[in-house]
């Protein structure tokens, strides 16, 4: 049996997906990028192979993607996360229907990708200037409010008053804005809800730049935050589709690219 690996080395975490020749997802694993992301990537891959009882010899093609893609020397090929994301989203959303628009929020950037009917990337927009509207922004907020980032979603739905917006686009200044709101006895729930809407508004602006087309797919770690999903849906006025494992779409896409490249090389 031949296996294909996609490794997505992001700013915050490493995501690895393993697929078979028929492009079925066999397994995936994530770990923090940390200070030695190359070593961690290698260890995570070894661990995943062990768990899945796959011999490293059976891995025939590896594709790396993400910010750290060029630093993973073992890869047979590396591709940009835009391409990988588009391929992964289309493949993992088969049950959902045609994907036309992708929203991806990563640790340090956010993207909106527009696809044509054949699934080719026709346009994309990125907000990579700072941490505004990214996963890092949510981390900063959660840290300030003394809760886990995974608790934010629940708090969102408990908001009672008007969501208290945070207008600072800078994560550092947003932190002091949150301190101000807390100091004035505003509820954590209303603050969290406001933060989600502030991020959602920024993301939707990005999406509008590439055009909002039905069939919207939202992935990246922050897609696990249902509060943020709710805010984005409200801002778009449309439902978005969230895959089962939104963190690994891009590495899954990289692995699929591996199959195609491998078969192309063979012929």
């Amino acid at each position, binding site marked *: 049996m031949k296996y294909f690996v996609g490794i997505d080395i992001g700013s915050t975490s490493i995501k690895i997906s393993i697929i078979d020749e028929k492009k079925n997802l066999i397994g995936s694993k994530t770990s923090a990028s940390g200070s030695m992301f190359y070593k961690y990537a290698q260890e995570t891959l070894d661990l995943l192979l062990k768990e899945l009882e796959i011999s490293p010899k059976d891995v025939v093609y590896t594709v790396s993607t993400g910010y750290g893609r060029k630093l993973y020397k073992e890869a047979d090929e590396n591709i940009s996360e835009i391409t990988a994301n588009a391929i992964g989203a289309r493949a993992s959303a088969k049950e959902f229907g045609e994907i036309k628009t992708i929203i991806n929020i990563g640790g340090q950037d956010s993207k909106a990708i527009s696809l044509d009917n054949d699934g080719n990337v026709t346009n994309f927009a990125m907000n990579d200037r700072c941490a505004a509207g990214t996963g890092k922004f949510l981390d900063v907020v959660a840290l300030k409010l003394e809760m886990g980032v995974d608790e934010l*979603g629940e708090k969102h739905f408990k908001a009672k008053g008007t969501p208290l917006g945070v207008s600072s686009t800078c994560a550092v200044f947003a932190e002091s804005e949150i301190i101000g709101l807390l100091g*004035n006895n505003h509820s954590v729930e209303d603050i969290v809800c406001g933060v989600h809407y502030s991020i959602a508004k920024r993301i939707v602006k990005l999406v509008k730049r590439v055009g909002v087309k039905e069939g919207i797919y939202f992935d990246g770690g922050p897609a696990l935050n249902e509060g943020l999903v*709710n805010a984005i849906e409200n801002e778009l*006025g449309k*439902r978005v589709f969230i895959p089962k494992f939104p963190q690994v779409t891009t590495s899954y896409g990289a692995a699929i690219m591996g199959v195609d490249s491998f078969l192309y090389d063979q012929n």
Partner: protein
Amino acid sequence: MTSKFKHDIESPLQKQNRHKAMEAIRIINTLKDDFKNPIESMNYFYKLFEDVFCNQKSLHDGKLKVGTMCIQIPSEIIYALDAVPIRLCNGFYSDDEIGSDYMPQKSCPLVRSTVGHFASGNFSDKPHLIYSPTTCDQKTKAGVTIESFGYEVVDVDFPRVKDSEISREYFRRSIREFAIDLSKKTGNKLNKKSLKQSIAKIGYAQSLYHKLCEYRKKKNIVISGNDMFFVTNAFFFDKIDSWIDACENLLKECKQREDENLFVNGKISPRIVYTGSPPIFPNYKVPIVIEESDGIIVADETCSSNRMFNDRVAVDEWFVNDMLDSMADKYLKACTCPIFTKNDDRIRRIIDLVKTYSADGVVYQSFAGCTVYEAEQRSVLEAMEKEGIPILYIESDYSPSQGGQLTTRVEAFIESLKTRKRIKK
């Protein structure tokens, strides 16, 4: 992914209301929470704004609501005909974004957001018809755009020169026409008694404003400039009787606070006269930065506050047509809008305010795209320089992201005024 929480998607209307509520609550909370010695009677106004802009509460159900653009449409006539005036000038960035699709990109945010408000049609109190004085080009053209959304917009001829006898006659006729038109539309006849009563009521409301301003002339100040903008902005849409009651309460508390030595200014807080494009809720960007930087706005020359209340209707004959003429005179001659040419009156008014309120400096804000304020800043700056009055000119808009640079400029200006004060001492 299966959802753990129940969430429905908002309708476009709900979404827009949330956007506005988020903008509104932010400013209300800032005023409630971020300044020292808050005034209790201001809570009426905070709640009013929250009710109208966060909870979309209607205040005037069952009445004919007459929308007015600018301040040259006499409310006295509208009240006398048993209708309610609602000033349509808007301060919401969310509406500005909608309005940008209908007005030129270079037009001013106030006009864009007013048009945006009509484009969405989402009002707490929707006006039945609109009277638009032909003031600046942008407002005039906005009327045409608003009409295209299916509203009835009546232009009220307004001259660009106010010193001549011709324009005085012109506007007197214009006001008579307006009174006849509204009379037809309301089905009520304008009579001496009701007109006299409404002149008296508006005059009384103005007197309350002037009494509040008396407190701002003193060395120590009991009410902040931002709170005063809340009060005057509320006059745009509140029930007049409730507004009067609330101002009476505010006056009582001001007196009490003075007795208790509860002041909003610090020892050396520079006293500021604010002029230029009007702060209209919730766009209090510049006034808030001024007062957060330890400046105190003691007076203003804007159409959302002082210019609206400054002069009263002076009647010498109590017949309907005479009263109408007196109103026309007040709304034309006393107005210091920058659309006029020539406009020495505005400069005179600003200098007068600086002297009467012992101000240390002037902040002049012009909305980007507001040509008349942009054009007039030069002559105002020169005049202030001649008088030795420090002035800061700022260009801004409704976007929430201007923060840092704006704050630095205002802070530096306030600090320079403080240094002057220290040296003087």
